[in-house]
């Protein structure tokens, strides 16, 4: 397999992982905010 497909794979995987990380962090903060406000 050519190295170039590894480059694309790494790029897509990294974006996906970073996006998931941000989504999880956002959910954690929103939940924490709701608990703080007694929601």
């Amino acid at each position: 397999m050519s190295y170039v497909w590894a480059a694309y794979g790494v790029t897509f995987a990294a974006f996906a992982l970073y996006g998931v990380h941000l989504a999880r962090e956002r959910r954690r903060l929103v939940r924490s905010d709701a608990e703080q406000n007694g929601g």
Partner: protein
Amino acid sequence: MTEISRPLSPELADDAAAAPGALERGAARLRTPSGVALAVVTAVYVWSVVAAPVDATQGVIAKILFVHPPLAFGGYLGFVLAAVASALYLWRRDEQYDRFALSAAEVGVVFTTLMMITGPIWAKGTWGRWWSWDPRLTVTLLLWFVYLAYLLLRSFSDGGERTARFAAVYAIVGVLLIPLNYWVIELFGSRAMHPENLERGSLGEGMGLPFLMGNLFCLVAFVHLLARRIEVEGLRHRAGVRRALEDSA
């Protein structure tokens, strides 16, 4: 990134009760449409890359052209936005700009890291080795270190106004490496190993669409990830302010 601990003030108390700022509201509105756009652009991008003709000289490895330069542009965009937001922060002293600068720098580092990974992948296939102390590669490595240091500074500092001002000046000075990185190839001429800057007519037949899609993909991905990052930074800021208020109560 860092937890916020600042001396409490009436302004801070108002900040805690205030709604998200304009930048954060805009980021929240962008989240879904940019995510949908990203899904569509990704599908077209993948198709265009697979369908693109194979270069007669370099073979399929030449398709790195459709991902590596766009990642570089994304990194530069992040650092330029961080510098602009930093300048606005120094001028207006509105913390929204400081949070935007931090978010843009982090997304820029993500793109630059990927650029630093995809470049050596091409180099291994073409030059036979992963790295060379070529001028462009060396300045890019320096650029990456500069903004990694920016993120580390923000992580390990107390998050006060002094840190924000120092970080703002740092981000503005750091961005000067981008024009240097662009012109270093012109300066070194044929002594540079890295391919020359792209110009009109550089691309071979059939390469225009995948290259355009690569840039569009990276732009939409950048916007989407930046919007998410801005939202997170805003939420972290308000959580930190609330904690500071509770601790002082």
